[in-house]
């Protein structure tokens, strides 16, 4: 049975690390050196460093930290030893037996770099450098396409460089984006603090800060657009070749890169848009509030005005919205299908009509004849000929009278049809029939 490994407890972990003797002591100079090494590796797309490369990077650190040039070799040696001792740099030459020393940044070093990189911002210089590296990698891939053919070639010489080199370089740009976002937040915060503290004195500083940031952002956006266009051009050619050679895995990687490039462009567009809104707002503030109220007395006066308002209120007169009287559109109802029916009041009038009474008399006569000859009485059958000759309004009012008469005379329950019948097809009139079979 497989044994389940128990997770170590907090005291166990603490004890283990404490007893290992590990300690980390990193100076400002060492942190800067580490970042220098990281940037060099990123630009060169190299993962191994030789002592001469490390020394060249350290020369920059020495220069910036105002170190003495004469003692450069010694200072360099000490710096390398400190990085090795702190496990920020590791030797990757198998211990150095008979070989020239080779170094790489350790996992711990990369973690610190990750933390420090978060604050690294995107600017035109580093964007141009990284984009140039991407374009150059794409050019190498494009050149190699002449010898393309095998799946192995597409995997080793196209997909992997695209996935690991190009995608990593785009990641480097994206990381710097976050840095730029943070920097913009800091600028906003700084402008607010400056205004809060110095008010009128801050006017010039704020205007300068606004202008500088706007110019930087605009330049960066333009660079981003032009570099993106160059990168996409290179990618297009590789994509066409991969498509022709039916390389879906390569196409998938290229699609991913396209997406990230589009996102980069979108990010740039949004940042420029949001900054321009902020720029307008601050400019308005500076022009209409700071210049208008140089001694910042208005806010205080306004607070006083508000506090005294209940005691001495004042009101603003505004125009009363005019009432526009408009004619209402008349909507006539559409042509409705005419349904013939008799209103009760009209029915009364019809009963008095001679013609109406004549129809009733004729129908009664018909029924009586049928009853006398013991024929069956079918209401629909009786009224149908009358409906053909007379209007419905002449016949309909008498139907009730006819039913009463039939019921009275037959002395039996007539049968009623459950369905509605139309005595005449072309007439919108239906009734439940009543039939009395007298045979």
């Amino acid at each position, binding site marked *: 049975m497989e044994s389940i490994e128990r997770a170590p407890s907090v005291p166990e972990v603490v004890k283990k690390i404490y007893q290992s003797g590990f300690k980390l002591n990193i100076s400002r100079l060492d942190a800067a050196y580490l970042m220098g090494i990281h940037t060099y590796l990123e630009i060169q797309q190299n993962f191994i460093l030789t002592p001469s490369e490390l020394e060249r990077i350290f020369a920059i650190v020495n220069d910036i930290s105002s170190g003495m040039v004469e003692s450069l070799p010694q200072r360099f040696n000490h710096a390398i030893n400190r990085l090795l001792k702190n496990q920020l740099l590791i030797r990757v030459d198998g211990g150095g037996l008979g070989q020239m020393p080779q170094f790489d940044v350790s996992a711990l070093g990369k973690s610190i770099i990750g933390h420090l990189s978060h604050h690294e911002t995107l600017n035109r210089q580093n964007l141009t450098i990284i984009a140039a590296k991407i374009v150059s990698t794409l050019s190498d891939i494009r050149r190699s396409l002449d010898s393309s053919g095998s799946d192995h070639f597409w995997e080793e010489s196209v997909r992997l460089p695209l996935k690991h080199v190009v995608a990593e370089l785009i990641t480097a740009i994206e990381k710097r984006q976050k840095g730029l976002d943070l920097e913009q937040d800091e600028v906003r915060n700084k402008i607010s603090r400056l205004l809060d503290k110095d008010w009128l004195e801050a006017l010039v500083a704020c205007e300068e800060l606004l202008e500088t940031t706007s110019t930087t952002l605009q330049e960066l956006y333009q660079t981003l657009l032009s570099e993106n266009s160059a990168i996409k051009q290179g990618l297009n050619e590789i994509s066409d070749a991969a498509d022709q050679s039916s390389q879906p895995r390569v196409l998938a990687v290229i699609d991913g890169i396209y997406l990230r490039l589009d996102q980069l462009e979108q990010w740039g567009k949004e940042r420029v848009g949001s900054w321009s809104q902020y720029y307008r707002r601050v400019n308005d503030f500076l022009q209409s509030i700071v210049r208008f109220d140089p001694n910042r007395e208005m806010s205080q006066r306004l607070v006083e*005005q*508000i506090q005294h308002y*209940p005691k001495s209120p004042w009101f603003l007169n505004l125009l009363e919205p005019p009432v526009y009287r408009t004619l209402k559109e008349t909507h006539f109802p559409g042509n409705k299908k005419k349904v013939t029916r008799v209103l009760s009041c009209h029915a009364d009038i019809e009963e008095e009509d001679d013609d109406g009474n004549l129809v009733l008399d004729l129908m009664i006569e018909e029924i009586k004849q049928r009853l006398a000859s013991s024929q069956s009485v079918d209401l629909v059958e009786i009224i149908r000929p009358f409906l053909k000759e007379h209007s419905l309004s002449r016949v309909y009012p008498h139907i009730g009278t006819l039913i009463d008469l039939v019921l009275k005379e037959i002395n039996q329950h007539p049968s009623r049809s459950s369905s509605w019948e139309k005595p005449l097809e072309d007439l919108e009139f239906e009734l439940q029939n009543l039939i009395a079979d007298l045979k």
Partner: protein
Amino acid sequence: MDQEINDLHDLLLDPIFPDLDIKLRSGWHCDEEEIEAFDFITKTQDKIEMFYELYGFELLYATEGYYYLRPVSSKIKVRTLGMEAMIISQFLALMKMDPQYLESTGFFDLQELMDKIELTLGKKQVSQLFLKRKKYKEAISEQDALNFQLSVKKALRELARYGFISINPDFTKIYPRKPIFRFMDPIRNMDNPRAALESIVRGENPFESNDESEEDDD
């Protein structure tokens, strides 16, 4: 505005004018954020002024950058803005002048505004002004808080109708626009705010100096 406006006839026939006219006559204030309308007024200002003069209105351009109509004759009906709207607008003007709101989007939400009102005026005055209570009671019920909120919302809607502010339906984004500075007229460049107040109540132009010494300087 496609065609050039050379006279009143052109002005009246321009498709932008009818809507603008209705809004201006309803007491609306037009700032730069109303791009089309603002641009139209700026380009045709002299014609519009001429047109409204016939009706007894004066088209004013405030120094902060907005237009509105002011009645100069008694044939035009006017109405007075409610007390709640008056108080709230002064608070909004105050908040717009605070640089702390620059850092964010420049919007306030309802709660922020209500907190500011309560903090500055105190519960007693809030109770008198917004809940219309003559007698103050310490404890504020849920219903009181709701009534206060409703009263503020009603006033905000009224201010939005006149173009003093922009609001979203749930009042999470209240944005005071430039015309909100109209509520600072009594304290604008005045050594005597009381006199300024009286002049506003009389309906005089706040941007026109009556100081004779200034005229002499000119």
